């Protein structure tokens, strides 16, 4: 499978760098601490929020900048001359991002075990689907036709940071006003956070099967859009 070769290249080239791994863990951890300190929140609520943020940030951390980097390093033309389609390239990038997202999410899961928290193993399935969905979202960010990683990171940050505030990570969705609940439905992170909360025995916002269907739906839309947009954008990077 040619997409595995792309994924392997991405992991060695972009993901297995000290700063990337450390940042993937530290950013959610600091956000977590910032909201934990001084607030009387249950450990279950905080850990599930941390898991959600970790999967989300890890899966969207590097995937947006791979295409601009490849354009800037002038490695893209060599890749495009190989007998592979844009779909294979996108799948390879998504696969690398999923692997990283799942790998990093093991840290807060282990933390939960250290705190003695019990959880349903359905969360593993949720993490895999969420990592896939968020990786596709990351690829969607990188479809903006530029070779400047900073531009893509700006676009990515402008979307990613607001999403964590409307997805029930820091404030339970049940406590949001009606308009807040409506907006939260637009974020794929909402559904994964709900899966995480349900897995840790907390009250659900939506039935769990709805969460899975929504995440799968978002994944398909993000993936199809990524492939279409990358087909156009890749050539402008040469």
């Amino acid at each position, binding site marked *: 499978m040619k997409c595995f070769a792309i994924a392997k290249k991405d992991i060695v080239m972009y993901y297995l760098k000290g700063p990337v791994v450390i940042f993937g863990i530290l950013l959610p951890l600091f956000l977590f601490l910032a909201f934990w300190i001084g607030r009387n929140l249950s450990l279950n609520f905080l850990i599930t929020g941390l898991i959600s943020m970790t999967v989300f940030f890890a899966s969207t951390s590097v995937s947006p900048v791979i295409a601009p980097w490849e354009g800037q*390093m002038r490695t893209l033309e060599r890749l495009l001359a190989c*007998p592979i389609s844009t779909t294979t390239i996108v799948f390879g990038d998504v696969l690398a991002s999923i692997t990283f997202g799942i790998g990093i999410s093991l840290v807060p899961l282990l933390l939960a075990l250290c705190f003695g928290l019990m959880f349903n193993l359905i969360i593993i399935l949720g993490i895999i689907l969420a990592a896939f969905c968020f990786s596709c979202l990351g690829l969607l960010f990188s479809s903006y036709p530029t070779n400047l990683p900073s531009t893509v990171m700006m676009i990515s940050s402008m979307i990613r940071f607001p999403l964590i505030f409307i997805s029930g990570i820091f404030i339970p969705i049940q406590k949001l006003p009606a308009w807040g609940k409506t907006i939260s439905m637009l974020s794929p992170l909402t559904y994964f956070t709900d899966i995480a909360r349900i897995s840790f025995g907390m009250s659900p916002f939506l039935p769990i099967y709805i969460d899975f269907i929504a995440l799968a739906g978002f994944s398909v839309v993000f993936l199809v859009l990524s492939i279409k947009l990358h087909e156009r954008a890749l050539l402008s990077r040469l």
Partner: protein
Amino acid sequence: MIAIEAEGLRKRFGNVEALKGVSFRVKRGEIFGFLGPNGAGKTTTVRILTGILKPDSGKARINGYDIIEETLKAKQSIGVLPEVSNAYPDLTAWQNIMLIASLYGMRRREAETRANELLKEFGIHERKDAKVRGFSKGMKQRLMLCMALISDPEIIFLDEPTSGLDVQSARMIREKVLEIANERKTVFLTSHNMDEVNLLCDRVAIINKGKIVTVDTPERLKSRVGGNVAIEVSFGGKAELNLENVERFGDKHVIYTTNPYKTICEVVDFARKSGVEIVSINTRTPTLEDAFLKLLEMER
């Protein structure tokens, strides 16, 4: 048998028409040179033939496969050394080659055997586990050629393969090109180095302003300059030589002639009458560069 066939290729980028109906054929086993000034449409043509770009109209067949309808099959039979491309700097030479082998769907054992052979042949086997970041330009280019050849392709596209290289690397690459052609494989060579094209190519196409000016053998192109012999003369002072087929390059005049004895006499007469000294006078056959410049001039 035709290895590469371009038929009426057209490509527009915004208001710029990069290709205006490019057509040519390359036979199997040929080393085909593709020359043209900067911005003539060379890279666009190569990108279309290698399946990277799609033409607005026209057709191209590579190894019998339509490059638009059967892109992946066409790409499977080619190896490419793009002009502006790099190997992955944070991967080792070995990882770079194995990546390309995987993308061509090669079996691991076959890929490893061939990679070892190529790396040894190009003198970088000892550095195979070093990251490409630390390689010199010559080593990087040799590695890129290994990557282009790993799948043992029938057709190889080389875009400026020796540009900016040290003598040793450039010679190694030229020798390999000849060796590839001896194996009845096709080489499509884009280069600004006229001596290289003259030395290696069976036929040459010249492209200018998006159109093919001519396709011919280097020797026939040279004979089109307007004479069999070029006389190169340098005068000691300022002199305006009024002869047919004369061109001026720096302090030299180059006269293309079919009758060198008569022309030399005319040059000596001119120097005597004008009272200028002849610093040097040489006869040589017109070069491919002479032909190239002449043909472009005729296009203006």
